[in-house]
């Protein structure tokens, strides 16, 4: 095999496996960065690649059109000479000969390969999980199925109070469904946020008629021909016509594992998106990597990461400088209220609430060793960008100042003359 040199193409295309947010961003990024070689995009789905966030938000609204929001117009792929094979998956990667075996039986050679296969909804495994009426939400098809099922008056049981479950709960309630959310933990979104934010969103959902059952371990879904009820470990029976499982995702790493690439609940990549094979990159939901902030091994399931990693891969392939690393961030919208998060919170971070949740607009910041590590903003974005910068800078924060929402976050760095600039900030990325 010829040696790979950044920016040089040896005649074979870059093959991108998966045309979700990350795969499409790699293809577009390669062209923006001037790559003139071939680009082959293997799209396991059939329609023009589309945005996923609206699937649990706008698309489910009553009266909203069923059309998807496309990532790029169909014409874009032609204009940019991106060969997109719709409905074709990569079945195997032959690293020796640098070829990919496609689902139509053909083989295509590559110089560089990018695995952007994303993730899939973690399937329920309890008895009855396969009954009609049990839904998951990952693709547009899933979303349209769900939308058709969410008829006014329908009893909906949502398993898992993560952001997808809660966004669907909100949409279902707005469509006139009777919604119960079953959650194993004792509060909503416990994996991603702190108690004050959880409590705020619980109240918001309750005001909109949604009922929560916490500590609920689902043991079975029962029904004659279709789902009729959900049973939990304590024997409680929750009648339901529609069940949605929102219990996390699994990385679509099989094609990489089988090719012998290093994987551990995600394809392992470095800061440039390189896998254990120098000709193969991976980006997006399917990857696991060390956080540039603190080295923690992580898998991030958000658009920001899908795009940022894609740009780094495009930069590496074309031999260019990537953009500065970005603090990861995420958003969710429930009952019209936006929660936007920057940074990755740890459960033992110090929690400081800025503002009064009762007025419906506030922020929560998270300090680790006194330094800003993450922020949640609710119904307002004033703290969002300053927080991103301060997190990247590893800025020390005075908790007393930060508790006053009238003081801009940038003015909450301690006013202590004995601290040097080096004490105040210690750049994280």
């Amino acid at each position, binding site marked *: 095999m010829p040696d790979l040199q950044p920016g040089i193409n040896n005649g074979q295309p870059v093959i991108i496996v998966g045309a979700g947010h990350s795969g499409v961003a790699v293809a577009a990024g390669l062209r923006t960065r001037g790559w003139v070689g071939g680009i082959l995009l293997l799209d396991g789905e059939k329609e023009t690649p589309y945005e996923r966030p609206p699937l649990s938000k706008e698309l489910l609204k009553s009266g909203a059109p069923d059309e998807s929001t496309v*990532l790029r117009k169909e014409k*874009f792929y032609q204009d940019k000479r991106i060969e997109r094979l719709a409905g074709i998956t990569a079945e195997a990667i032959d690293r020796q000969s640098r070829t990919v075996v496609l689902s139509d039986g053909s083989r295509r050679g590559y110089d560089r390969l990018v695995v952007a296969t994303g993730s899939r909804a973690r399937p329920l495994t309890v008895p009855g999980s396969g009954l009609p009426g049990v839904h998951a939400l990952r693709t547009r098809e899933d979303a349209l199925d769900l939308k058709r099922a969410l008829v006014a008056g329908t009893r909906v049981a949502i398993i898992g109070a993560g952001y997808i479950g809660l966004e669907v709960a909100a949409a279902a309630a707005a469509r006139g469904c009777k919604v119960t959310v079953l959650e194993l933990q004792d509060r909503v979104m416990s994996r991603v946020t702190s108690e004050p934010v959880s409590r705020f969103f619980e109240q918001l959902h309750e005001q909109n008629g949604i009922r929560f059952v916490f500590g609920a371990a689902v043991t079975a879904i029962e029904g004659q021909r279709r789902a009729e009820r959900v049973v939990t470990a304590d024997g409680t029976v929750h009648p339901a016509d529609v069940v949605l499982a929102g219990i996390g995702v699994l990385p679509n790493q099989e094609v990489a594992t089988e090719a012998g690439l290093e994987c551990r609940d995600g394809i392992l990549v470095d800061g440039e998106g390189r896998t254990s094979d120098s000709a193969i990159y991976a980006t997006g939901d399917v990857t696991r990597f060390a956080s540039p902030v603190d080295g923690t091994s992580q898998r991030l399931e958000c*658009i920001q990461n899908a795009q940022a990693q894609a740009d780094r891969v495009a930069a590496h392939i074309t031999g260019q400088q990537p*953009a500065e690393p970005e603090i990861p*961030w995420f*958003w969710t919208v429930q009952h019209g209220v*936006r929660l*936007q998060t920057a940074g990755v919170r740890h459960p033992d971070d110090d929690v400081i609430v800025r503002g009064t949740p009762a007025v419906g607009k506030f922020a929560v910041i998270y300090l680790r060793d006194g330094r800003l590590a993450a922020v949640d903003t609710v119904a307002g*974005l004033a703290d969002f960008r300053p927080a991103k910068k301060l997190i990247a800078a590893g800025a020390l924060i005075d908790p007393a100042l930060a508790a006053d929402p009238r003081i801009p976050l940038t003015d909450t760095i301690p006013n202590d003359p004995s601290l040097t600039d080096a004490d105040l900030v210690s750049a994280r990325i």
Partner: protein
Amino acid sequence: MSNNKLTVVDREGKSRDLEWEPDQTLMEALRDNDLPVLASCGGTASCATCHVFLADEVFDTLGERSEDEIELLVEAEGYRECGSRLSCQLDFTKDLDGVTVTLAPEE
């Protein structure tokens, strides 16, 4: 409807003319013409990477900015009270034919 013509001044100060198609937001027109607009939120007024400047007289003809848009922009690099917009929030209109758009600095 026919396309709009746009002049874009990039972050190096170079100008370029391009076409803005009726079914695109301004952000999409910039991004699909290979300008370095990351648009990392897909146009939902969450990221501000699509921040642009417009001339005062053009800015004044546009509608009010939403609260989210203002809060994001105020904290953005080079914010101008009059002139800063998130390009993803600007739909195609014939009124914007021939205008000049300047990309705001990156963070």
